[in-house]
């Protein structure tokens, strides 16, 4: 497996994403209980763990959907904890959603194009026709090709098949060319063949970026990830390369069980 020499990587550059003692409680219930994690520049990092372990909550804290109760989140040297989602996105972090979260009445093409506009600097531009923006058009076309939806470009996103919507979900996430990508269960609900396609797609689109993903499918995780963190009851009990995660006894007893042999 193609594993990066992690020690030297972390010495050379600061981590792309750095979590320090993140805590989150809903009311009196602690859900995230002091998570610290470094995701290195350019690595593919997976978070696994049992249901209710806090994986999705952690994603929501990083991406700004919720503010953490305490702790710091640093994205490429900038503090982003408790910023609004759009502000975090503008600083170079994009995420996908476990439950498909697209623009249902817009065409597939418009879905992607809306997602490239800010990063290309068009912001709240109201004096130029959006169809005349060549760079937006070119990037949108390129992403449609990557996610293999070119032939569906004019269909309203709401009528796509489930697998197509999942591909569009990833397309929207990568369209803004963010340096750090968070994918929340990208292959959930897919057939084996669809999941294989999705893995191939994720491999391509995460090239040159930092990827943090939550995934239940162990085949996908061990196939794709450079490093794996195991989140159990709001705490990370291990972070390591896949081969050592498989052998880790604490992980096996807490979560993996026989799946580690798969």
């Amino acid at each position: 497996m193609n594993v990066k020499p992690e020690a030297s990587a972390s010495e050379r550059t600061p981590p792309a994403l750095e979590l320090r003692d993140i805590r989150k409680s809903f009311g009196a219930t602690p859900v995230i209980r002091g998570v610290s994690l470094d995701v290195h520049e350019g690595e593919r990092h997976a978070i696994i763990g049992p249901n209710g372990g806090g994986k999705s909550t952690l994603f929501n804290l990083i991406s700004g959907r919720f503010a953490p109760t305490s702790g710091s989140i640093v994205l490429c040297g900038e503090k982003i904890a408790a910023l609004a989602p759009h502000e975090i996105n503008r600083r170079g972090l994009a995420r996908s959603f476990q439950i498909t979260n697209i623009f249902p009445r817009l065409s597939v093409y418009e879905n992607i194009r809306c997602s490239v506009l800010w990063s290309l600097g068009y912001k709240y531009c109201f004096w130029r026709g959006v169809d005349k923006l060549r760079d937006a058009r070119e990037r949108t076309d390129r992403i449609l090709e990557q996610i293999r939806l070119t032939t569906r470009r004019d269909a309203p996103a709401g009528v796509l098949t489930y697998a197509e919507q999942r591909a569009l979900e990833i397309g929207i996430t990568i369209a803004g060319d963010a340096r750090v990508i968070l994918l929340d269960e990208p292959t959930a609900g897919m057939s084996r063949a669809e999941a294989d396609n999705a893995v191939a797609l994720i491999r391509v689109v995460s090239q040159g970026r930092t990827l943090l993903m939550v995934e239940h499918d162990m085949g996908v995780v061990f196939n794709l990830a450079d490093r794996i963190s195991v989140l159990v009851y709001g705490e990370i009990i291990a972070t390591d390369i896949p081969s050592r995660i498989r052998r880790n006894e604490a992980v096996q007893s807490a979560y993996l069980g026989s799946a580690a042999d798969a």
Partner: protein
Amino acid sequence: MSGSREVAAPATVFAGVAMNWANRHKQWLAASLVLLALPHVPGLNSDFGRSLLSQMGIAAVFALSFNVLLGQTGLLSFGHAVYFGLGGYAAIHFMRVINHGLPLPIPLVPLAGAAAGLLFGILFGSVTTRRAGTIFALITLGIGELVYAATFMLPGYFGGEEGITASRTRGPALFGLDFGSQLQVYYVIAVWALIAAMLMRAFIRTPVGRMCNAVRDNPERAAFVGYNTQRVRLFAFSVAGLFAGLAGGLHAINYEIVAADSVSALRSGTVLLMTYIGGVGHFVGPVIGALILTWLQVSLSGYTSAWLLYLGLFFLVTILFAPSGLAGLIMMHGSIVHTKAFWRVLRAYAIALVPAVFMGIGAVILIEMSYRVSTQPELGTRMRIFWITVDAASPWPWITAIALLAGGFFVFRKTWPIVAVAWNRATDEAGAVNMTAQRR
């Protein structure tokens, strides 16, 4: 030879560019030709007809501006007349300044309305657009009431009950136009309406206009691709305010008076009805709604004092049976108009129309007689409805009307399967045609 080619080339290029431009904007060219010709069409070439057309133009701009909020951004406002009315007041004051000697031509007056609409759109919008959905709707309702109350509290600016008047004829002459005739006023309105429609169409096709659609569809995702959804909503709100203010300015020129009714909840409700009846999902929908409702307001009110009731019924029937509005209905038929089964659909409609007409006649007789008896007893019980004279004191007209309504409804229900069968056949055929077209 080569010399003549050199001379011809720029002319050819110019002609080519012009043709290309005309081709890309042919719907606007067609619209301007229609607007140019309308006040000379028999039936509309009277002062009444031209006044009706002028009102339609104003309503169309107002409804289009409302749809920037409702259809494009998914924001339901109950107080859009605020921007129409405040634009109207700004325009009428501006017109008074011109009356007192400011050397600016009268057709520029709507710009003062647009500026005021934009200003108040930004001002009130920065409060209202913090929220979407129900909270947004309630805040707009509150601001509407607030501004309506202000028109009576600040009589110096708003003129109280009587409103503010000005004269559109007392300004510097422009190409010999004095704007005394309704025809000239119509053309001022038509030109501004066309410009406003083109600009609003263009706005939807800008980056921020597209993001309005995205925020309407899914505000959360719009935030996660980098957009501050409040800011996007504020843009939509300000643009809607600007064009509502422009419509208010046209209103000021047309009537030479602006009063409290221009900011009233009634006007806010009317523009909502127009937009919904026309269809929020299509750009021309609000225009269709504005034309029909203005026509109904002007003509129905001349025939019956129960016209508001008919308007309400019309609205109910539209949102119940055609939730995508008249434009949606037209688009639905556009997809089957080329099929052979389309004629079956038309025939089915004709069959269903017969009992529907009887039903309608029964309903109208009932409504008119009830209205007469309960609200205008001083006029007596004998009355003319359509071409018949009835006496509301006698039971027979009531029995006949109820029989027409109930019987018509019963038969009408029986015709629905005929329509449904014809419709399904036509859509099947249209679907098959599409499939073969795709396969090719």
